[in-house]
C-alpha cells in the first residue's frame, strides 16, 4: 500500500507533494488555492474527459454503422437487380439456343422472326446472330450488315469457346448508343459448337440504375475492370470515360469504404457483378454523410466545454471561500497566540510584582514601626531639644512608607487580576462575605445596609477573588458616597435580557455622580476627587467584568444617589 502511494507521489505535481509545508507568508494561500483547484479539476475533469472520449467513439461507431448498413444494402440490392437483368437476358438466349436447332437459327428468315418476337418481349435487344465454330456469322438479324463476318480471331470468340458465356464491356455501336454483347455457346452431339450472339442496348441498364433513388450529392454507376464507365454518372463522367479513382479490388460482396479526392472525403461502396466484367460503384458526398456526425461532435464539445467551465468556476469559488476561511482561522489563531503570549507575560509579570510587593511589605512594616518608635520616643520624652525638627523628619519617613504601601497594594491588586481561578460561586454568600469586610465601618458610621437577595439565584462560575474585588470596590464607593447614617441596598436577581446571567444592583442615597463624571468613571486614574483612592478601582472592576463578558451600568442623580448594576454571565467567558 505504502509502495503504491510512493509510486503515485512520483507523478504528483510538486506543489501537492509538499502539501503540509506551505511555509509562511501570504503566498502559501495562493499555493493552497492553486493546489485545491488543481486537485478538484483533475478529479472532475479527467473522468469527464474519459466519458467524452468514450461517448465520442461509441457514437462514431454507431453512426458509422447507421450510415454503412443502408449503403451496403443498397449496393447489394442494386447488384442483385443488375445481375438478375443480365442473367434474364442470358437465360433467354440460352433458351433460344437450346430450343432451336442450328438449322433453324441459321435460317435468316427464321432468325428474323425469332428476333422480332424477342424484341417484342425485350425491346433492349438490338440484334441477334448465329456464328458457327469457324467464327463465321451464319445468320444475322439487326441493323448492321454483319452476315458473313468472321470472328475467328476475336477475343470474345475465344472466351465464349472456353467459358460458354460471354458478356462484353459496353461500347458505342449503332446510332452512337452504348451497347454490350452477350454470347452463348452450344455444343453439338457431333463435337462441334455454335454461338448465339446478341447486342443489348444499355439504356435499360441506365434506367435500372437511375431508378435507385439517391440524394443529389450521391452517385451510382457501373464501370468495367479498366475503370471505363459503363453507365452515365452524375459527377464522374459519362459513358465510356475513365473514372478518376483506382479500380477497387475484386469482391462480389458489397464493400463500403472511404476515399479521398479533391472534393474531400467520400463514402465509397462497390461490388463486382457475377458473370460480367461490371463493377457497381456507389459514391456518397461527405457533407451529406458527415453532417449528422459533425453536429454530434459540436454538441459533445459544447457539453464538455460547459462542464469544464462549470467545474472551473465552482472549484475556483470553493477554493476561494475555503482559503479565505483558512486565512481567517490562521489570523484568528495568530492573534490568539499573540494575546495568549501577552497574557502569559502579564501573568508572570503579575507574579513577579506580587512577590516583590510581598517581600517589600515586611521591611516596609519594620521601617514604619521603627520610625514610629523614634517618633514615639521623641514625643514621650518631653525634654528632647530638636523635637520639632526630628518629628518632621520622621513624619516624612512615614509618608514615604505610606506611598510605598500604596504602590505595593496596587501591584498586588494587579497581580491578583492575573491569577484567575474559576470556581462555582453563590453570589449571595459572596456579597455577604464582602460586606463583612465593611461591617465595622457601617457600624461606626451608622450606615444601614439592606439586602434584597433573590433566594433562588443560580450559582455562577467565576473567579472568587476578582468578584470580591469588584464588589468590594463598588460597595466601598457606595460607603464613600453616603453621609453617615445613609442607606445602601444590595439586590440580586436574574438578568432579564440575557438568559443564565445574573445581576447585582448596589444602590446608595449618597451624593450621586455628576453626568459629566458618569462618562469617565470607568476610565483609569479618574478619581471622584476624594483624597483617597487611586482612581483605579472602578476601572479595574469594569475590566474584570467586561473580560468575563459582563457589564457594569451606572444610574445616578446628583444629590439623590447612584445605582451600580453589575451584570455577570453564567460563566466567565474569559477563563
Amino acid at each position, binding site marked *: 500500500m505504502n509502495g503504491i502511494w510512493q509510486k503515485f507521489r512520483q507523478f504528483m505535481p510538486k506543489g501537492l507533494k509538499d502539501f503540509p509545508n506551505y511555509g509562511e507568508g501570504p503566498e502559501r494561500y495562493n499555493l493552497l488555492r492553486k493546489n485545491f483547484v488543481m486537485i478538484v479539476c483533475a478529479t472532475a475533469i479527467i473522468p469527464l474527459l474519459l466519458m467524452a472520449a468514450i461517448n465520442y467513439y461509441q457514437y462514431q461507431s454507431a453512426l458509422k454503422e447507421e450510415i454503412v448498413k443502408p449503403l451496403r444494402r443498397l449496393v447489394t440490392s442494386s447488384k442483385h437487380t443488375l445481375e438478375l437483368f443480365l442473367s434474364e437476358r442470358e437465360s433467354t438466349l440460352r433458351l433460344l439456343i437450346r430450343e432451336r436447332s442450328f438449322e433453324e437459327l441459321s435460317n435468316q428468315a427464321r432468325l428474323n422472326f425469332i428476333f422480332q418476337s424477342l424484341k417484342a418481349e425485350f425491346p433492349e435487344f438490338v440484334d441477334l446472330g448465329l456464328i458457327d465454330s469457324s467464327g463465321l456469322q451464319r445468320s444475322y438479324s439487326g441493323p448492321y450488315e454483319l452476315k458473313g463476318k468472321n470472328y475467328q480471331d476475336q477475343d470474345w470468340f475465344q472466351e465464349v469457346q472456353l467459358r460458354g458465356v460471354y458478356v462484353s464491356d459496353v461500347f458505342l455501336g449503332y446510332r452512337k448508343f452504348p451497347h454490350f454483347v452477350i454470347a452463348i455457346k452450344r455444343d453439338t452431339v457431333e463435337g462441334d459448337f455454335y454461338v448465339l450472339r446478341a447486342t443489348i442496348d444499355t439504356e435499360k441498364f441506365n434506367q435500372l440504375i437511375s431508378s435507385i433513388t439517391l440524394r443529389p450529392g450521391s452517385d451510382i454507376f457501373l464501370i468495367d475492370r479498366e475503370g471505363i464507365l459503363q453507365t452515365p454518372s452524375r459527377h464522374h463522367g459519362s459513358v465510356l470515360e475513365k473514372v478518376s479513382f483506382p479500380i477497387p479490388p475484386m469482391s462480389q460482396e458489397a464493400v463500403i469504404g472511404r476515399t479521398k479526392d479533391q472534393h474531400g472525403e467520400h463514402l465509397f461502396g462497390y461490388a463486382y457483378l457475377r458473370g460480367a466484367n461490371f463493377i457497381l460503384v456507389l459514391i456518397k458526398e461527405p457533407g451529406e454523410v458527415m453532417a449528422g456526425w459533425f453536429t454530434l461532435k459540436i454538441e459533445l464539445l459544447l457539453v464538455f466545454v460547459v462542464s469544464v467551465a462549470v467545474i472551473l468556476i465552482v472549484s475556483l469559488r470553493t477554493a476561494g471561500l475555503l482559503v479565505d476561511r483558512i486565512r481567517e482561522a490562521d489570523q484568528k489563531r495568530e492573534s490568539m497566540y499573540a494575546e495568549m503570549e501577552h497574557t502569559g507575560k502579564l501573568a508572570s509579570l503579575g507574579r513577579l510584582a506580587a512577590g516583590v510587593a510581598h517581600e517589600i511589605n515586611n521591611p516596609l512594616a519594620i*521601617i514604619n*514601626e521603627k520610625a*514610629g*518608635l523614634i517618633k514615639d520616643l521623641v514625643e514621650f520624652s518631653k525634654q528632647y531639644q530638636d523635637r520639632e525638627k526630628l518629628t518632621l523628619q520622621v513624619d516624612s519617613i512615614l509618608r514615604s512608607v505610606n506611598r510605598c504601601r500604596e504602590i505595593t497594594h496596587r501591584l498586588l491588586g494587579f497581580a491578583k487580576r492575573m491569577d484567575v481561578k474559576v470556581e462555582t460561586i453563590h453570589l449571595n454568600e459572596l456579597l455577604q462575605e464582602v460586606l463583612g469586610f465593611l461591617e465595622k465601618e457601617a457600624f461606626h458610621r451608622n450606615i444601614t445596609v439592606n439586602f434584597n437577595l433573590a433566594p433562588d439565584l443560580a450559582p455562577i462560575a467565576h473567579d472568587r477573588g476578582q468578584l470580591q474585588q469588584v464588589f468590594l470596590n463598588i460597595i466601598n464607593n457606595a460607603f464613600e458616597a453616603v453621609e453617615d447614617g445613609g442607606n445602601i441596598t444590595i439586590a440580586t436577581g436574574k438578568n432579564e435580557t440575557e438568559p443564565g446571567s445574573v445581576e447585582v444592583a448596589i444602590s446608595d442615597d449618597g451624593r450621586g455622580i455628576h453626568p459629566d463624571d458618569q462618562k469617565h468613571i470607568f476610565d483609569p486614574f479618574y478619581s471622584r476627587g476624594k483624597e483617597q483612592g487611586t482612581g483605579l478601582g472602578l476601572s479595574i472592576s469594569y475590566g474584570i467584568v467586561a473580560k468575563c463578558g459582563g457589564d457594569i451600568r451606572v444610574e445616578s442623580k446628583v444629590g439623590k444617589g447612584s445605582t451600580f448594576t453589575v451584570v455577570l454571565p453564567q460563566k466567565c467567558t474569559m477563563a
Partner: protein
Amino acid sequence: MAEYRVLLVDDEEEFVSALSERLMLRGIEVDSALNGEEALGRMDEKEFEVVILDVMMPGLSGLEVLRQIKSTHPNTQVILLTGHGATREGIEGMRLGAFDYLIKPVDIEEMLEKMKEAAKTAHMD
C-alpha cells in the same frame, strides 16, 4: 476603661520588637510571639483580651492559629495583620471570627483604635 493585655504575633522580630515597644510606651501590656506555636503556648500561660495576628507566617499559618484561638479562647478578640491587601485571606479570616483586620504597614492610631474596641468586646462577652 479597663486595662487589657495584647499578644503580638509576627515572624518579623524587628517588627514585633518595635511595635511592642511603641504599644508599651502607650501603656499597653504587650507580649510577643514569633510564630503560631509560640503564640498558642503564651495563651495557655496567660489570658489575653486581644491578639494581633499576622496572617502570613512560616509554620502554623495565621488562619490556622486564628481557628485554634477561637476554639480554645472564644473570648479573645483577634485582629488580623494582612501582608497584602489580600481580600481573600481577610475575608476568610473575618468568616472565621476575627474581630477586624489591618493592612501592613499599620497606622498606629488606627491600630490602637481597633484594639480598644476589641478589648471592649472581649470584656463584654
